[in-house]
């Protein structure tokens, strides 16, 4: 089944036909966006619902319709059921691509929103405008050096010499400094601050005030000690000396790793399964409400 969309995605990069399709898609997108903006709320809600239902209906059909198994590249469908099954299977990557492209638009939306907020604060010299300036400058620098680095690698490095650091130049070092030297290090530093909060909480908040808290603390201690190899090994060796190395001895069950394994497999995993079931049922209910247009929020 050759979908009309396949004709668009199948064009050669840089060909006139592809550019024509892209311009057409852009104009259609702008027209649709303007139409949606001008549309009264009364009309907008059904439009959003129809788009949502159609998108969900494809995946619903894909899920319930018998799917061809071990299909070869030259296999042809026989009968209506197989034709639909083949068609759905062929359409899935195209639909997934559309979903991927739509999701990628969120990045653009994020950049727009960020610039809208911070440029506004900057030009109006609102409180903490200096931070907005740093943010915008950092973003612009990262975009410039990111693209510059990418273009060098893509178009000026046919032998892929830049894969080795020895061949780097100013642009590559600058991008590495910005991305790995600054952004990623700050990212790691922010995350590592959790260690301080956890330690502070362990000292000030983790108190045995009830039976539940005692059980929680006992479990936590077992899990912590099981990760500490040195403690585990000393304790295990002690038990081994008592059992004489007999793997069938009941005292082996008192090893920290054995107790931790029991806590994980007998307590933690079933509890998590129950939670996952609950979350799954909630997601199913929410998904159905969104799909069938019963959820009123977010479409006005």
């Amino acid at each position, binding site marked *: 089944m050759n979908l009309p969309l396949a004709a668009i*995605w199948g064009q050669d990069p840089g060909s006139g036909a592809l550019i024509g399709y892209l311009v057409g898609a852009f104009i259609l997108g702008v027209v649709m966006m303007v139409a949606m903006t001008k549309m009264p709320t009364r009309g907008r809600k059904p439009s959003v619902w129809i788009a949502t239902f159609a998108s969900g209906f494809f995946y619903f059909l894909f899920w319930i319709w018998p799917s061809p198994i071990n299909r070869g590249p030259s296999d042809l469908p026989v009968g209506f059921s197989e034709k639909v099954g083949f068609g759905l*299977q*062929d359409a*899935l*990557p195209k*639909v*997934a*691509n559309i*979903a*991927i492209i*739509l*999701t990628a638009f*969120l*990045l653009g939306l994020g950049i727009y929103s960020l610039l809208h907020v911070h440029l506004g604060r900057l030009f109006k010299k609102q409180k903490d405008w200096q931070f907005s300036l740093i943010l915008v400058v950092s973003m612009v620098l990262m975009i410039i050096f990111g693209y510059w680095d990418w273009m060098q690698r893509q178009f000026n*490095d046919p*032998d*892929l010499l830049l*894969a*080795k*650091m020895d061949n780097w130049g100013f642009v590559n070092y600058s991008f*590495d400094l910005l*991305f*790995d030297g600054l*952004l*990623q290090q700050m*990212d*790691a530093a*922010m995350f*590592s601050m959790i*260690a*301080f909060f*956890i*330690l*502070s909480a*362990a*000292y*000030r908040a*983790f*108190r*045995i005030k009830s039976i539940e808290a005692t059980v929680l*603390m006992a479990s936590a*201690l077992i899990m*912590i000690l099981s*990760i*500490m*190899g*040195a403690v*585990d*090994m000393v304790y*295990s060796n002690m038990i081994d000396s008592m059992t004489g190395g007999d*793997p069938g001895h009941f005292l*082996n069950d008192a090893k920290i*790793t054995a107790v931790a*394994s029991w806590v*994980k497999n007998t307590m*933690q*995993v079933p509890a*998590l*399964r129950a939670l*996952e079931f609950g979350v799954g049922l909630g997601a199913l209910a929410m998904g159905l409400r969104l799909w069938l247009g019963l959820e009123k929020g977010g479409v006005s």
Partner: protein
Amino acid sequence: MSENLSIWEKMQSFDRRWLYLVLIVLVTFGLFVSPDIPAQPDESSVGLYVTLDGLDENDTILIQSDWTNSTRGETLGHLEALLRTVMAKRIKFVMYTFADPQAPQVSRDALRRLNDELPEDKRYKLGIDYLELGYFPNAEGATQSLGNNIRTFWEGRKTRVEGNGGDEMDIFRTPVLENIQKLEDCGMICVVTPSNTIDIAVERLSGKLPICCMCTGVVGPQILPYYNAGQVAGLAIGLKGVYDMEMMMAGGLNLDKADYPNSVRSDKYSENKALPVVSPIEGKSSADYSLGRGKKYYAALNIALALMVLAVIAGNIGMYAAKRRERNA
């Protein structure tokens, strides 16, 4: 009044910044000493290493690298251990991400560092030994499409090939993917993640190929049900998972100590045996090649955890001392 307080009660009100200072000093000390700390590998880490050990040189695997540097204490070690094993065994791989736009660059940097360590003839070459396919937004849709048909999902994608003069080539014509007709032809998929992208992989790809995961300690418990159910073949959790992997890579698993003195023991999986990785760098032993961030950070982890246990104990003793004083007053 205050001079009658016990040391435990006085400690209840001391400045928390002292606690932070102790943490900084001790953890920093832990980073500079990296002693051999004996540890039994977790059963889930054993599963991962045994799965990797079962791969052949001609296999192609998928590496879904969904992490960024915020969790690099754990996930960078995971990816490095995985790549070192894969590169030592000359297994081909496809690397991509479904989670974060920054992730491809982060994993690219990690791969470059490891590649730079290798001698020229052993270096992994783009388009020949591995592929980098970048970022795919919408993990749910992308994973479903990958599971449906790997050929149509990545249809038309091109890559540069090292030694090809800069020309691009269809990825399914490269040595990495030329023998892959369907997802089941891949040796395994390993998801390196600090988030729930492994859930999606299990939901959409289960039963098609062995799924393994390397995740942060926070996410680990959430994935254990999949491991216990057999849907995930192997799972390295947190920094302990990195250490487990490195120890097994360096010494092998459940091997005869006479032949492999550094072999680690797993009581629960004593029937599973796996060889250590063979270092691709001449003059470097398996241990020298394999031991990296796991060994470097494990002492610091032990120290931090010991400090936390002490903090909990000291905090509770202080609380009881204060309660006792109130009762006696």
